[in-house]
Every structure is written in structure tokens, then in C-alpha cells.
């Protein structure tokens, strides 16, 4: 069984993004999706802090201190990009103008609930950022995450145990084991990593799986 690498997971998600979509990528692994979209395909990336059309990371010596993304990393602006205020940036997010948001998560439930901002253990001063706005506002929400936690617990679950980010909004999950759609009936397996068996996937998931 060969699990997908993080780069392969990002590439798998990137391959499903049509040209012309406006896309917000969450902090962490989702950010890697941008590098997997070839520059000749016009997918327009949005960042919460008012950048529409972020381009690849600059070489360190070319970094412009005035141009960062929501993860506070230096970015570039591609031709055709623009700057907007936070107010307009979140009107974009909350008004349903993004075709897609890709977030990381602690857990995704079979009804599409997502928990990605606070864990039960460390939520004394949790940091929500724009996650709730993105999850509730984008036209579709995909999650990109490992299939299980570092200590092997399932992250695809019947019901989230961590504090929720939003209700019933995840449409698709990309993990290192599989790609799964969230349907009326629950998790539906679209594709599995090479050599991952149904049994292995079932064992690593704390919810029913539908195999086509």
C-alpha cells in the first residue's frame, strides 16, 4: 500500500480545478495546491487579506515586504490581479463569489460538518481566522488532510468531536489514502491511492463508506 504524498494529494486536488475558477486555499497543506496548477491554466487564487490573483512565492531576495498572503507568507501578484480591502475581501468570501475553498481539517463528518479551528485539548485561546467565513461562504468546500491523525485515529468520522467550524458544507475530501465525495448517503469513495484496499480504508475511517 502506497499512500499519496502531500504533493500528490495537492496535485490530485489541483487536477479537479477547472480553469477560470476563483479559489481560496487555507493555511498549511492546501496552499500547496497552487503550485500544482500550471501557470498556463488561469485559476485565480484569493487570499483573505485582500489579494485576488496571488502568484507563486518569490525568490527570497525578491520578496516584497508589502505583499503577503493570509498565511503571512510572501507571495507575488499575477498579471490581472488586484488588491481589495478586508471588507471587500470578505464580501467575496461570504457573498458566495468563490467557486472553491480548500481547507485543512481536524475532522470531517459524514454529513459534511467540518472541525478545523480548535481542538478540545487546546482551545483556551483558539484562533479561528477566516475559516468559518470560508466554510459557510464559498460555493464549494473541499478538505485536504491526512486520512488519520499522527497517532492513527480516524479523521473521517460519523460526527465531529472537536468544535465545529461549519455545518454540512464539505463536498469532497482529499486524503493520503483516498478521494471521497460527501453525498446524501455519506462518504462515497471516488478513488483510492495505489494498493490501498477497501479493508484498509474502512479500518482507517470512523464512518460508513460507499464504494461505487
Amino acid at each position, binding site marked *: 500500500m502506497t499512500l499519496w504524498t502531500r504533493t500528490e494529494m495537492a496535485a490530485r486536488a489541483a487536477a479537479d480545478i477547472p*480553469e477560470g475558477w476563483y479559489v481560496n486555499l487555507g493555511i498549511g497543506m492546501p496552499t500547496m495546491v497552487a503550485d500544482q496548477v500550471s501557470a498556463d491554466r488561469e485559476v485565480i487564487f484569493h487570499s483573505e487579506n485582500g489579494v485576488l490573483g496571488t502568484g507563486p512565492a518569490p525568490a527570497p531576495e525578491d520578496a516584497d515586504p508589502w505583499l503577503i498572503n493570509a498565511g503571512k507568507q510572501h507571495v507575488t*501578484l499575477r498579471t490581472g490581479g488586484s488588491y481589495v480591502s478586508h471588507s471587500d475581501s470578505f*464580501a467575496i468570501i461570504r*457573498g458566495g463569489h468563490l467557486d472553491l475553498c480548500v481547507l485543512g481539517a481536524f475532522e470531517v463528518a459524514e454529513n459534511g460538518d467540518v472541525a478545523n479551528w480548535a481542538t478540545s485539548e487546546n482551545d483556551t485561546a483558539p484562533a479561528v481566522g477566516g475559516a468559518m467565513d470560508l466554510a459557510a461562504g464559498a460555493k464549494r468546500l473541499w478538505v485536504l488532510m491526512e486520512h488519520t491523525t499522527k497517532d492513527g485515529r480516524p479523521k473521517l468520522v460519523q460526527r465531529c468531536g472537536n468544535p465545529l467550524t461549519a455545518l454540512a458544507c464539505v463536498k469532497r475530501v482529499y486524503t493520503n489514502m483516498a478521494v471521497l465525495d460527501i453525498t446524501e448517503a455519506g462518504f462515497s469513495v471516488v478513488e483510492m491511492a495505489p494498493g490501498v484496499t477497501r479493508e484498509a480504508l474502512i479500518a482507517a475511517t470512523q464512518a460508513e463508506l460507499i464504494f461505487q
Partner: protein
Amino acid sequence: MIDKTVASMADAMAGIQDGSIILLGGFGAVGQPDTLLDGLIEHGARNLTIVANNAGAHRVGLARLMEMRRVGRIVCSFPRSSSSVIFEELYRAGEIELEIVPQGTLSERIRAAGAGIGGFYTPTAVGTKLADGKEMREIDGRMMVLETALHGDVALLEAWQADRWGNLTYNKSGRNFNPVMAMAAKTTIVQAHHIVKLGQLDPEHIITPGIFVDRIYPLNGAAA
């Protein structure tokens, strides 16, 4: 490659349904999408709801559309002017429904639709007949009325410059309702005076980013 410019008026109007809610940019004659209105007249959609500041003038554009009995309802702040003859005839004859909305509430209701806000509380119109029957509540010691988001199916707008991604600038008071309406419709269609190359608009100076725009109709023919 993204290219939102359309090749013909038929392409610009494609898919506009009978019964649509149409947001119309412009204030007075400035920033008004006259060419697209002619296209809409030609297109033939009927039973429209028009959301605009004014209720048309003379016998052209919106007034002509009303004269053809294609508008069932108009939502606006200022329907009456010396040249709003068609509207007044229809209104007196009971052939058009009118919803009067204070201009700022109109703009804010459209913004709410564009920004994902379901409704909001405003002190405007409290104590007047435009708040009759509406839900009220006191916030911070002031009475406010609940107003709801006003969504469009289609926005017809006018811009000054546009590029193939749909990034827009406006000209002076031609800006008016155009940027806020661009955010609030399922399909935003813009007539543009100048089509410029992608990258020609300074990213700091773009007023409406292309994410809000679906189709660009070049007023001067060919794209750059």
C-alpha cells in the same frame, strides 16, 4: 484562458429568463447601460422586475421596456421626474407594481446580497410609511427597521475600462450603483467603453475585480 468579453449582443443577453430580477446601474443618465438595455429590449424577456435608482426617462431604454409592458415591477428610490412619463402612465393605470426604497437602503440591501448578509437593521425610514409593517427593534438606544438582502438574477452595468478577466474601472460619477450591483447578481453583464489588455489596469486602481463580473460587452467593437 479566461476571456469574459462577448462577441455579440446575443451572447451578452444569452439565458436571461422571463421573470428575472434585473439590477440596472446608473444614476440619472450617467453610468447607465443604455446599449445593454437596447439588447434586453431586442432579447425579448418579459415580466421583469427592475431594480434601479430611477424609473426611466422619455421613451428609450428602461422607459421603452416598460412601454412594451415587459416590466411587471420596479424597485427604486426616485421614480418621478419630468421625463418619467411612461412609468407614471403605467403606474396610474395600475399596470406596474412599485416598491419605493430609500436610496441608501436600496444600495445597502443590494450590498447585503453581494456580501452574504441576510438582513440588517437601519434607522433610515423609522417612523415613516416606508417602514410600515416592517419589523423594528431598538439597538444602542435607537429604533431601527429590519431590511433584507435584495438579490438580482442579472445585473446590467456600465464601466469605463475592462480587461478580459472582467476587472473594471469607472468614470467620475459613472461609478454610482455599478460596483455594488456587480456583486449582487447571479450574472453580471457590463458594457465597457474601453477594453484594455490584462495587466494594463493598475492592481491598486481596479474598482470592481473580475470575480464579480461574468460578461463584458465592448462598446467600441473589437477588444484590444
